[in-house]
């Protein structure tokens, strides 16, 4: 009898709190988005699963000695997992399109307006009762506009770890929603003729350029923004391994096994921050709203910047590729390509959009560095 009672007291049914149930449903929602809707499944699947596990009563996944607490403290709080992922992303990134058409860097720069406008918006939200964002919180939220997962996780961990769950959910959800968020904005801000603009084929880029480029980026970051060097440095290391041609073993491992292993644990660890007390509040709603605004402003800024550049340059740029400047690699570039094809069935913008796309990755890493330098101290 006693034993039956003890067993009953150790069931989940006898110990559930409402918040846990809701968070587990949210975890299930993330799984649904990942599996049925193909929303950034590589991260949202382990993240949703982590959200479920961390909210199981009694099991203590995120308490001292729990499996997820080891992952969170060992890999995420230390920044190791996002940096390793960023190295892998660097090893997957081909800067060829960017080097062939460097002015697309300005598109990637313009799209970061999404970040800084959101920062302002987050502070403005303090007017709403129940929301109190410090400048650190606001900066961590703003980076959602960077549309780059590891950057957002890295910065949130440093500036506002208690918001990490909500920020990661917002960042990856909106990255997955890019094909829905961006096209209307892109169409609204461009004329049919602009969308029809065909771009000249990109010049071939030499191996030496591709090898020196990551080193140049790193050097400039060291000179002007050392706080961005963890992110930019690991990204450039990955890219250098990819391009140098002498460590293909390492490059391949960084792009495959290492990033896969780290992704599983990063997702679980981030999911473990989806606890009721940290997620179920008005602030999360504010973060979700701000995230949508950030993506929209970033998209618009990129498109408008391209139109502005066309005013001053002889070689025209199709303004659609400006939208790819928010990063969300390679989804945003594909969206630009797709919207371009609608206007002109012979207009293949994919390669051209890869320039602002990868520029956006650098841009948001730089923006993260600025926020760390000015707010993180």
């Amino acid at each position: 009898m006693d034993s039956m009672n003890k067993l009953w007291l150790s069931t989940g049914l006898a110990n559930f709190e409402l918040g846990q149930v809701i968070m587990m449903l949210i975890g299930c929602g993330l799984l649904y988005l990942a599996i049925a809707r193909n929303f950034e499944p590589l991260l949202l699947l382990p993240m949703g699963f982590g959200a479920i596990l961390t909210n199981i009563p009694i099991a203590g996944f995120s308490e001292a000695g729990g499996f997820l607490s080891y992952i969170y403290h060992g890999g995420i709080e230390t920044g190791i997992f996002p940096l390793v992922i960023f190295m892998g992303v660097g090893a997957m990134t081909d800067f060829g399109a960017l080097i062939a058409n460097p002015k697309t860097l300005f598109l990637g720069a313009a799209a970061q307006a999404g970040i800084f406008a959101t920062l302002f918006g987050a502070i403005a939200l303090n007017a709403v009762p129940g929301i109190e964002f410090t400048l650190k919180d606001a900066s961590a939220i703003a980076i959602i506009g960077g549309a780059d997962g590891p950057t957002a996780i890295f910065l949130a961990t440093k500036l506002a770890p208690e918001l990490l769950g909500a920020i990661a959910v917002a960042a990856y959800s909106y990255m997955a929603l890019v094909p829905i968020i961006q096209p209307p904005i892109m169409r609204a801000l461009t004329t049919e003729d602009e969308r029809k603009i065909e771009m000249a084929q990109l010049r071939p880029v030499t191996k030496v350029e591709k090898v020196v480029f990551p080193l140049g980026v790193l050097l400039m970051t060291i000179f002007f923004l050392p706080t961005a060097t963890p992110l930019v440095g690991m990204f450039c290391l990955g890219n250098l391994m990819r391009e140098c041609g002498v460590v293909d073993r390492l490059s391949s491992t960084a792009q495959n096994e290492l990033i896969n292993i780290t992704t599983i644990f990063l997702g679980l660890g981030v999911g473990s921050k989806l606890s009721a007390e940290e997620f179920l509040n008005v602030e999360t709603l504010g973060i979700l709203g701000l995230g949508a605004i950030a993506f929209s402003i970033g998209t618009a800024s990129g498109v408008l910047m391209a139109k502005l550049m066309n005013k001053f340059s002889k070689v025209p740029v199709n303004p659609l590729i400006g939208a790819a400047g928010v990063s969300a690699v390679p989804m945003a570039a594909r969206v630009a390509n797709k919207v371009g094809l609608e206007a002109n069935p012979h207009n293949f913008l994919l390669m051209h959009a890869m320039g602002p796309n990868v520029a956006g990755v650098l841009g948001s890493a730089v923006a993260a560095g600025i926020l760390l330098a000015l707010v993180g101290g």
Partner: protein
Amino acid sequence: MEHLHPLFLEAGTLMITGMVFVFSFLGLLVIFINTILAKLALKFPDAVVPKKSKTRSSVLSNKSNTSVKGISPNIVAAVTSAVTQYRQQHSTTNRTKK
């Protein structure tokens, strides 16, 4: 709302400083590409033979020294199917073995 003022001011400054910095930084990168990388590209052009075809031909020459031209698509189809089958078998084996 009064007490938000200083935070607002800070956020505004941050916004402007940030955007200026991002543009300057990526702008410098444009210059870097247009000057240094461009010079390097001229000075160290890629070898004429593209890498891909080199690899393929070297693989071939190691094996049989025959030309690949004139192979019927039928054979290529056979090969592709065989490779696919091989791969599938291989991955299946991998899965079942624990």
